[in-house]
């Protein structure tokens, strides 16, 4: 059986609060906090992008897996903020991590689902025996237009997973994908900010796909919500994943560990993978975990995982998600945020 042999996450230290953004645009912070359940979000520094986040998360994954990077035969990075339109993020990240040149690399994009997409393909290659180890990463420095609802959530971070066949820390018991042509959110070539269909992103997009994929994987495995210790769903805002979880029968105790969006924001392709990393940081052997991502356009990937006896041995080998979320932070004013997100036009 194939599964996860190592994982790691990375969240930048800079933060901006919902209050700060709301005040900038003359909105009532209490209304935003109540409506979206967002307190603050991470912001990338000038020297942080999808590649650096991938490398930071990937190195932690290698440390926990304790595998020779040269044995990693495939590397996939899912993101909607690859620094280059043409030139792979994966090649830079691989070289920095000591992976390759005997390696298959591709950059993935499927809105916020690209991270689990990379994980899904990496798992498949390991299961088939084509490669011994494969790494799948979801990372983003998410874009959200100024004065758009997305500005309160779009944040930076990511997580990396190495899949293999022995010394597993979590078995992958089942996967399921649910996809349809649903144009709820998009960014066209050359456009700086994504556009979205407002409330259309909810019921017909997020909920239809997340609930369909999750219910199907429960049916496929014969498991019930009660059987799981944890569940994590893509987190475009605070409310959606909690609503989806409750509709599926999950309780707050099962949802709260992976629910990072309140202080992390939506790290797009990194969102549910980072939620899973926070769960693996604390899960106990035998714990069942449900992961369901969502990417606009639209689709969801579901994974049912089971923590192994080995997991506690590797949890302390790299920084935990909570240590990065709750550890040292630098709070930005909106002006500083605008500078770091390169929203201020300056001469070259």
């Amino acid at each position, binding site marked *: 059986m194939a599964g996860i042999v190592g994982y790691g996450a990375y969240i930048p230290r800079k933060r901006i609060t919902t209050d700060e953004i709301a005040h900038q645009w003359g909105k*009532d912070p209490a209304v935003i906090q109540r*409506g979206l359940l967002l307190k603050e979000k991470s912001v990338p520094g000038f020297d942080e992008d999808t590649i650096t986040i991938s490398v930071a998360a990937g190195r932690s994954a290698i440390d926990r897996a304790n595998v020779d990077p040269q044995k990693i035969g495939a590397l996939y990075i899912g993101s909607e903020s690859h620094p280059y339109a043409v030139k792979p993020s994966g090649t830079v990240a691989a070289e920095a991590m000591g992976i390759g040149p005997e390696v298959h690399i591709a950059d993935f994009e499927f809105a916020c689902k690209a991270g689990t997409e990379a994980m899904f393909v990496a798992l498949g290659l390991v299961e088939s025996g084509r490669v011994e180890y494969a790494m799948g990463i979801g990372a983003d420095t998410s874009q959200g237009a100024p004065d758009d609802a997305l500005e309160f959530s779009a944040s930076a971070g990511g997580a990396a997973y190495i899949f293999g066949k022995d010394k597993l820390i979590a078995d992958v018991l089942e996967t399921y994908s649910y996809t349809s042509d649903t144009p709820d959110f998009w960014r066209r070539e050359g456009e700086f900010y994504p556009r979205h269909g*407002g409330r*259309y992103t909810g*019921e*017909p997009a997020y909920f239809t796909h997340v609930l369909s994929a999750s219910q199907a994987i429960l049916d496929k495995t014969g498991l019930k919500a009660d059987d799981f210790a944890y569940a994590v769903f893509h987190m475009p805002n605070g409310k959606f994943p909690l609503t989806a979880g409750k509709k599926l029968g999950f309780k707050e105790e099962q949802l709260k560990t992976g629910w990072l969006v309140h202080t992390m924001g939506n790290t797009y392709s990194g969102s549910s993978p980072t939620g899973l990393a926070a769960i693996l940081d604390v899960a106990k052997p035998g714990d069942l975990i449900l992961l369901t991502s969502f990417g606009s356009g639209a689709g969801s990937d579901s994974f049912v995982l089971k923590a192994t006896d080995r997991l506690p041995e590797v949890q302390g080998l790299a920084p935990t998600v909570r240590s990065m979320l709750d550890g040292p932070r630098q709070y930005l004013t909106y002006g500083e945020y605008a500078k770091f997100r390169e929203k201020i036009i300056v001469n070259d």
Partner: protein
Amino acid sequence: MREVAIVGAGMTRFGELWKYSLRDMFVEAASGALQDAGADRLDSMYVGCMSGGQFVGQEHLGPLMADHLGMAGVAATHVESACASGGVALRQAFMEVASGMSDVVLAAGIEKMNDGADVTNVLATAADQETEVYYGVTFPGLYAMIARAHMEEYGTTEEDLAWVAVKNHKQGALNEKAQFPREVTLEEVMNSSIVSAPLRLLHCSPVTDGAAAVLLCPLDMAKEFTDAPVKIVGSGMATGSMALADREDPAFLDSVEKSGAQAYKMAGIGPRDVNVAEVHDCFTIAEICCTEALGFVEKGKGGPAAKEGFTALGGCIPVNTSGGLKSKGHPVGATGIAQTIEIFRQLRGEAGARQVENARIGLAQNMGGSGASSVVHIFEGV
């Protein structure tokens, strides 16, 4: 004039109907009305719709809808009077049957609002572009000013407004077609987000997709279609100043009073004879102003009517038993016909848990803009 009856009704569920297009909704409602009456022919049809052009880029709705109903060939006319488009479609159909020009006529209303359009801006085209919208006002802003004027003049309170939402949601909770069929508490309304002070989120009707249709014919032909026809005994329509600032009294809706007076006169009744009414509560303050202008309560006394139960189910004159625009939803062009269907059901004793006992005479009032147009119909069970 011939006596006219409604002999069939059909409507979609109201809500965010993402999987339904404008034409899908029309066909469901219109074929529902035809089936309800067992009718297989139409002489003519009217389609009330505020802005297919701006919401979904589609005009020329008469032939489009006739075609998709499988009725290409019949006369079909699109009518527009902003949010009163449905009520005006009914009035046109009524006049065509009453005049003897046609026998079997469909009056429909539709609106597809959830399809990516900037709804607030589209709706604002029903206000005066040159003297109102140019300066940035939107409909919540205009009705907020009406509310301020009413509070200033008559001492109406924010709690009075909130009770209208509480009452209509309580009634809408009994309507399976409603967009928000659930009750809300006074506290929830009073603590909901400010949209345009003093109006809060739960003082405002929602953005809705939906369609509704009724089938009309001469009363003496009605038994061919149903054992329980409902007569249209009064119809009135009036206009008022387009811009709120041009009105002598911004807290009073002249067009509603005038359209009501015409309908009462034609029906030969007064407000006290009405057993059940649907009025245009696009915002909670609008229900208060409409009940005053229609004479259900004295001018300036509409504020406490909901709280005191005067306009609630079981009260003296139950208003918006369907949940009103507030709870049932407000697909603008469809609203006038949906109101008519509620009265049709009430007068036939088919309103289930929200049935008004012994309802014999009902009234529907549908309004465009901030009250620049209003249309009132009075119905009587047979």
